[in-house]
């Protein structure tokens, strides 16, 4: 894609206000029908998928909890329904319960669920746990059979995780050019992934894509949170704080409060920093009790940073490494280990 073209203008999508109105309306409608016992199995999958999508966009942990609850209950009520296990696999994967999610996918296949739907979910799990070669085989197969937006986007995210940014860029471009919809969600998520990939390598490029994701979908909390992080890295601390203050106040995800606390501390605003740090800590405690694997990664980052407890960070980084042996998880573990060693040295000194 030509770098001088604003991606949001190049491929226009429906404004977030409209798209979220429809998303909320669909979820409310399906919840209503579910309460009246009028739902068939495919609609249950749709309901769980829509709630999870809203969770991802708005950064709403309560939606992850709701999706998980529905999927767990549904698999108990309909033990012979492959779709119920497909759905549960997705919610479990979203909470980083990857081994259980993979077992659910296998069970769904035994119950007759086959085809691309299962394969895409398998590839996502294999990728998440760092089995990149296995994930690549599946994603390549899907892209060869159906070279569409989703298939190209899957390959882009895989190359991004592997660290091959050149290949990832090519697939991000291909994916965008294959978009034939006006829904903002999938494209904003693709742009977010692209920006996320560049955060460690090139903050300017990261900024471009995170800004695109946020402009495309201003309600996309995760995109705005990472955009704030990049803005701060690029020297615009004022904007970063403004964004994070709003996100931290509106979202039940503690990541925004944690990041805000860090930036405020670095800015010398220790009182405000402590308030947000304390809020984030309590919230992480609650979430770790509910879904330890899901929040081990972010919890470790928190206690390694503004949380100020390297030993706690190390314990969580170990859990994270156990559920997904990715290079990133290894780096987090190593950083926590080094921080603990430094703390020990400091104490002994």
């Amino acid at each position, binding site marked *: 894609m030509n770098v001088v073209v604003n991606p949001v203008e190049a491929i226009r999508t429906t404004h977030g206000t409209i798209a979220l109105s429809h998303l909320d*309306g669909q979820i409310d409608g399906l919840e209503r029908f579910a309460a009246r016992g009028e739902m068939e199995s495919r609609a249950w999958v749709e309901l769980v998928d829509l709630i999870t999508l809203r969770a991802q966009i708005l950064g709403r942990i309560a939606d992850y909890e709701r999706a998980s609850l529905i999927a767990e209950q549904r698999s108990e009520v309909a033990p012979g329904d492959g779709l119920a296990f497909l759905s549960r696999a997705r919610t479990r994967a979203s909470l980083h319960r990857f081994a259980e999610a993979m077992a659910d996918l296998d069970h769904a296949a035994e119950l007759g669920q086959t085809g691309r739907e299962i394969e895409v979910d398998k590839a996502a799990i294999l990728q998440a746990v760092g089995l990149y070669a296995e994930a690549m085989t599946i994603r390549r197969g899907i892209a060869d059979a159906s070279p569409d937006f989703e298939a190209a986007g899957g390959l882009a995210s895989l190359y991004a995780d592997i660290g091959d940014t050149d290949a990832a860029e090519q697939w991000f471009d291909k994916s965008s050019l294959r978009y034939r919809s006006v829904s903002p969600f999938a494209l904003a998520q693709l742009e977010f992934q692209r920006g996320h990939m560049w955060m460690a390598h090139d903050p300017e490029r990261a900024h471009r894509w995170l800004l695109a994701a946020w402009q495309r979908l201003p309600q996309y909390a995760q995109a705005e949170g990472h955009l704030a992080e990049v803005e701060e890295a690029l020297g615009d601390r004022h904007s970063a704080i403004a964004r994070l203050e709003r996100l931290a106040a509106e979202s039940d995800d503690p990541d925004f409060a944690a990041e805000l606390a860090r930036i405020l501390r670095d800015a010398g605003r220790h009182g405000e920093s402590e308030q947000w740090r304390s809020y984030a800590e309590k919230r992480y405690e609650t979430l770790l009790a509910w879904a330890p694997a899901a929040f081990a990664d972010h919890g470790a980052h928190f206690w390694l940073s503004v949380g100020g407890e390297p030993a706690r960070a190390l314990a969580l980084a170990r859990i994270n490494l156990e559920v997904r042996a990715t290079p990133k998880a290894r780096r987090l573990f190593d950083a926590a280990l080094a921080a603990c060693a430094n703390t020990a040295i400091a104490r002994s000194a």
Partner: protein
Amino acid sequence: MSDHGAGPRSIANPEIDITDVFAFPSPERPGNLVLAMCNFPFKEIEATRLFFSDALDYRLRVRPVRVSTTGPNAAFAVGEQECFFSFTFDVPKMEGDRMVQTGVCRGPMGDLTLRVGDEAGAKGNGVRAFAGCRLDPFFVDQLFSGGMRMTRKIPPVTGINSVEGQNVLSIVVEVEHAKLFGPEAGPMVAVVAETATNGSFRARLDRVGRPEIKNFIMMDKAADSVNRDLDIRDLYSEEDGFKLRPDYIGAYRARLNGSMAVYDSLDDKVDWPLDEKGTHPLTEMLLADFLVVDMSKPFNEDGYLEIELALLDGSVPKTCGGRWVNHDIVDSLFTILINKRNGPRISDGVDGTAVPGSKTFPYISRPNPMPPKLAALVGIPT
């Protein structure tokens, strides 16, 4: 199902999905042409929460058309001149306790600003335009239509409208016909509707002329002599309805020939003999996939396909043609395809919606405040 979910792209993205197109002389004001399109099916959402996309250009295109030949090779000649009505919409804003959306209709007589849902519509320069949520005017028993394709038999009638009570987003334009192309253009017009992206990258996402071309006829791959593993409908929807590209025309022909031959066989007699190349007599006429309205004739509720069939028969059309909102095109099309009207009417047992459209602007009935749950079958290819 008319053009609801007519292809993988529309199934995945209902907001681009054009479900129906209508074109007819105004029953209220002779000399006026009415054009309408419906979009965004299968949304079990309160009517007040359904909005047009601000990223789409909803377009009704009109061209003058004349008859070039009659008889077995009957065909229309579509003029190069074109008028179109392009609708774009803003992001809704809060007004009091509810969201309000506005839009613009750009047409040959100028622009009209309209408020979505305003029953009176916007008026100016001989044009009246409406946009808003309405009751889906289409009706079909999908068990019947899908069952026919699955079993290769005429199924028993259950008579349940599969989309009863569902809403769609509708756009209606009424225009003085004489102002479109001038007096020398003749009385006949051809009409298609499109949805297209409106960013710097432009792409046609859906396109509809006649109902059920893509679903009843193009969805069935089994009788296709060329492509038996290709859902051809997305390709077809990308085409300019007034000028199909030569690239895929052979594939479309093969699909129509095979599928329509199957319909013709359902009553165990041949009413539409294929020629030596295997071409069905209706194929070329239906691939000219636009509604044809003769504005020299008065409003007629049952004009659908009448002009086309008369021309193929070598006779003189008697009606205005086009398509009226309440016409039972499912029964009409099945009867034409299966027995060429040489036998009994083939009916799915559903003859209308619970609230048929009225003969006053905007013609399509008010929306259902909260649509009911759709049956599992609806929207899934059968």
